[in-house]
């Protein structure tokens, strides 16, 4: 059987029966998406890779719970989100952020963007890295739930429904969490700006 052409459901059935190569094909096919999802939570490659490995090991042991009703990709995304949330929960959260915690570049980035000067400049990799560093610093002071809704909804423009499917939360819960997370992020940035 050509595993590369086999549908996810068939691969899952074969893997459940102990076919290692079928499971290998699942890993090959879905690892880019798992990596993208894990990248919302972790910023270092080795952390993302570690989390992705844990996701696939967990998926293998939970293959019996996949009933084939929804998409395999959705089922795996949910495992990825929950695994990453659990890994983040075990990590220590950073205390409140103040402007003295910022690097010179980060301070400049905030000032330039506040003054509207950044819009006139050409986007550069360096400035993008500084912005992502800043985002990560602020997010690391917030809860894991705040991070996932902000990254998905405001960062990736995911819908409430998509966040609900990925996390297993109800849609109304997602809306409430998103509203609170935005307020916390906004207040944290206001504090950094010192305005």
């Amino acid at each position, binding site marked *: 059987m050509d595993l590369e052409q086999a549908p996810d459901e068939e691969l899952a059935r074969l893997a459940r029966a102990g076919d*290692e190569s079928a*499971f*290998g094909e699942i*890993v*090959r096919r879905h*690892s*880019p998406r*798992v*990596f*993208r999802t894990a*990248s*919302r939570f972790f*910023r270092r*490659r080795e952390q*993302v*890779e570690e989390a*992705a*490995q844990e996701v*696939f*090991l967990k998926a*293998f042991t939970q293959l019996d719970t996949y009933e084939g009703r929804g998409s395999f990709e959705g089922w795996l995304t949910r495992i990825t989100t929950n695994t990453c949330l659990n890994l983040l929960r075990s990590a220590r959260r950073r205390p409140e952020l103040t402007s003295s915690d910022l690097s010179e570049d980060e301070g400049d980035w*905030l000032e330039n*963007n*506040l003054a509207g000067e950044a819009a006139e400049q050409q986007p550069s990799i360096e400035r*993008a890295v500084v*912005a*992502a560093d*800043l*985002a*990560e610093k*602020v*997010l690391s002071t917030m809860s894991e739930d705040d991070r996932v809704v*902000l*990254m998905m*909804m*405001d*960062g*990736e*423009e995911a819908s409430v429904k998509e966040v609900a499917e990925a996390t297993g939360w109800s849609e109304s819960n997602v809306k409430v969490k998103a*509203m*609170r997370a*935005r*307020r916390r*992020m*906004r*207040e944290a*940035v*206001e504090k950094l*700006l010192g*305005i």
Partner: protein
Amino acid sequence: MRDEHIKKLLDGAPLSSLGRAELAAVRAHAEVCEDCRRAVAAAQLSALMLKTRAQESFEPSPFFQTRVLAALRERRAAEEGWTLARLWKSAGLLVSSLAATTAALAVFTFVAPSEPAVAQEVAGTYSAESVILDDGADEQMTYDQVMTSLYGSEDEAAR
């Protein structure tokens, strides 16, 4: 529009999803309200940071699949090893309890019989015949005591 209304609008949905009318209302209010101007600036910067951060992503390395399968085999082997270890531990407990029982039986078989041997020794010293005839008591009396007890009692009888 009160300050709280603008903040609710800012927090209620991503900035990029606000409609033209909503954005116009936000801008108009921010021009006259200092507090809301700060909130709008912070919300815009937050959105920009999050969008930039969301663009960061890693691609799996070519060895990732091999790494996962190796980890899977390792974990399975560890689980099997754990099962064997549990079995071995249970077997070990059974063997030690059997050894303890055997040792206890050996003690009862070879050590406990020494008590009847003492009893036999005692029984040999005090045979039924000697106890009845009370030979031991006679041996403890001197010749004079025997004579006195014999003749002294006869004299008393003659008197």
